């Protein structure tokens, strides 16, 4: 398999696909729609609970970026590992973690994935091979490389996927990790979620090289830019990267060109971009609307789509209910899980 070709740099708004990505089957479209909707409705609910004071601290919403994690997950198999930074609720849901456990962690309750001790940025699931949930920008890149190291050491064919943003891509340890990953041919996919803003700093104000697919060039790591708003394009790129890694060819970089609709965190007034910019992406490129429109064009009934909406809303509402009624952790939990 040859290294993937690098597409020309472009923003999500003016993205012109050099040929459409492979079509999804109806089953795949429905799954993508359902999984993306679950993340969106979950995040909307989290935002609402934050506004009510039920969720504290930091809360970074994934709304707008759903196609990235859902498309990538469709390219993975059981046993592949996922690790990401602090904008992580979507990744948890995509790996199959329960909405109840995630929402209850956001509210700091004992039924949360970390018994209420981790919060929004720190949840894990060994069962679902989700390795967090990390609050220090780019730490997950070295850790994800270590997960790949373990796969290589054990000689299994699992791949690790390390997600990070355009902001994290400027951290030094990213390049330390790139170097080791290529040197040792580790099976790791570096997914750079370029949502165009590192907190309030646009890519053009922070990055000398704005084509993130080229960030591995000096380590000979192949990369490609992907329309991260089109779940089919994400899945196709994911398939290619997974095959590359499983074949023992080392790491690959996927720059996902995406967009976050909400602020960096709940406390972000988003003065660094215009309302029009956000509205244009929502209107032209929304990842969920793209799938919905294709399904409608393929004669799936409104009613069938509404059934998906209803199922997702039920899950999310139940999780919000659980997260507000589940008790807080026992005071004794303060002293547990420091050592094992």
């Amino acid at each position: 398999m040859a290294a993937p070709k690098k597409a020309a740099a472009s923003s999500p708004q003016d993205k012109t696909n050099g040929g459409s990505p492979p079509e999804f089957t109806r089953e795949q479209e429905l799954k993508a729609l359902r999984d993306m909707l679950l993340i969106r409705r979950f995040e909307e609910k989290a935002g609402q609970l934050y506004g009510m004071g039920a969720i504290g601290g930091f809360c970074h919403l994934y709304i707008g970026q759903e196609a990235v994690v859902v498309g990538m997950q469709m390219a993975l198999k059981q046993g592949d590992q996922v690790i990401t930074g602090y904008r992580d609720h979507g990744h948890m849901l995509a790996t199959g973690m329960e909405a109840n456990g995630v929402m209850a962690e956001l509210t700091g309750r004992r039924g949360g994935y970390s018994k209420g001790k981790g919060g929004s940025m720190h949840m894990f699931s060994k069962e679902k091979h989700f390795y967090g949930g990390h609050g220090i920008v780019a730490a997950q890149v070295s850790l994800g490389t270590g997960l790949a190291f373990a796969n290589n050491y054990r000689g299994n064919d699992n791949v690790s996927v390390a997600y990070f943003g355009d902001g994290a891509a400027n951290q030094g340890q990213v390049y330390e990790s790139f170097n080791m990953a290529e040197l040792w041919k580790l099976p790791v996919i570096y997914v750079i979620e370029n949502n165009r803003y590192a907190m309030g700093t646009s890519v053009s104000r922070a990055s000398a090289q704005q084509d993130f697919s080229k960030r591995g060039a000096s380590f000979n790591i192949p990369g490609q830019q992907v329309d991260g708003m089109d779940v089919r394009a994400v899945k196709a790129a994911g398939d290619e990267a997974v095959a590359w890694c499983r074949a023992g060819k080392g790491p690959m970089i996927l720059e996902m060109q995406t967009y976050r609709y909400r602020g960096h965190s709940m406390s972000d007034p988003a003065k660094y971009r215009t309302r029009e910019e956000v509205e244009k992406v929502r209107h032209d490129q929304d990842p969920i609307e793209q799938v919905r429109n294709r399904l409608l064009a393929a004669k799936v009934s409104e009613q069938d789509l509404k059934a998906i909406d209803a199922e997702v809303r039920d899950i999310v509402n139940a999780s919000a209910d659980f997260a507000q009624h589940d008790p807080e952790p026992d005071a004794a939990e303060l002293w547990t899980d420091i050592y094992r």
Partner: protein
Amino acid sequence: MPIQVLMPALSPTMEKGNLAKWLKKEGETIKSGDVIAEIETDKATMEVEATDEGTLGKILIPEGTADVAVNTPIATILADGETAADLAKAPAPAKQEKAAESAPPAAKAEAPVPKAAPAPQAVAEPDPEVPAGTEMITQTIREALRDAMAEEMRRDADVFVMGEEVAEYQGAYKVTQGLLQEFGAKRVIDTPITEHGFAGVGVGAAMAGLKPIVEFMTFNFAMQAMDQIINSAAKTLYMSGGQMGCSIVFRGPNGAAARVAAQHSQDYSAWYSSVPGLKVVAPFSAADYKGLLKAAIRDPNPVIFLENEVLYGHTGEVPKLDDFVIPIGKARIVRAGSHVSIISWSNGMTYALKAADELAKDGIEAEVIDLRTLRPMDTETIINSVKKTGRAVTVEEGWAQSGVGAEIAARIMENAFDYLDAPVARVSGKDVPMPYAANLEKLALPTVAEVVEAAKAVCYR
């Protein structure tokens, strides 16, 4: 006048070495830059180049001689026109180190490991971890560490070593000597110079269930990796509600070596030992180095294993047992006494034990406690001793402010205030970055005299 060639030092901490081989014979012509001999320590082998021209007059130290002190004259070079008759004129070196000890030719078949000076062994108390009658072998601390890693790697295929120069170079301080040959490149892994990155890779591998031993060439360089050690390794078990832990050892030399200045001479005992989620071990004796490293590798938590470069070449008695493991978290009373408790760890014990010898001459019997583990700290052993003696002195090479001595003093105050007959005294490194100049460096470190003085002060003597 004939020129003397002196035994060179290969490293900041080398005190003696073996004269492995002469490459020039007496009477041969020598040009500046010629390799005239090979010398070796347990760390390295190096060539001695001539810096003067002439004829090799007389070889003073035959090849195969072990334990030649640095600065001992090893040969003389005759200048043009000089003859063997001039040899007697060679000046004696101004300051000669301790004369080379009786020099039996080193057995060539053995590993080129000189028997270095034994660590102070004023051990009065038997080690409770060692069954009576156990056969002991004499080992350097360097060898004890290597054996600990090798034994654990034989025992558990998930254990591996990674770090800078750990494999092909055999370890920057030769602690990993021979591991590559036994375990291969898959388990003994040379990393690029990339502390932050490889610490993170190690932690990630540990989260996936492997048991890495991450060697830092020195803990001074681990400051670059501090985020991964604290934020990822130490906190993940808690942040995950107990789901995801991290069995990993970070090890390497810590603290002052010799003449390497401020950036290479910091003691991190206090830094790491303040962090919940980490265990911090800092042994002194060869046996403890071995038994505690084995325990650290088996521990399911992240362990910071602080070694001391000055001690690597020191020898001690190590029990010859199939599986000698010392539990983390237990201090040891190395010398029993009733007048004052002296509490230290790692190389601080050197000052503590020598001071106890001095104090004994003045009729003060010091009880010397080697903490061995800084977190969890064995408060009970400290408190029981202080209840007996009523006086305490802490000894550390690190800084006093927010230091481990300060923590010990606080615990004594909290738990044995009514037993104290004097305020706790601290002996520590001075509150300055480590200077380079030899005299200033000595002033910056604790001294035996300071420990003696502090002990006498708390005894009102």
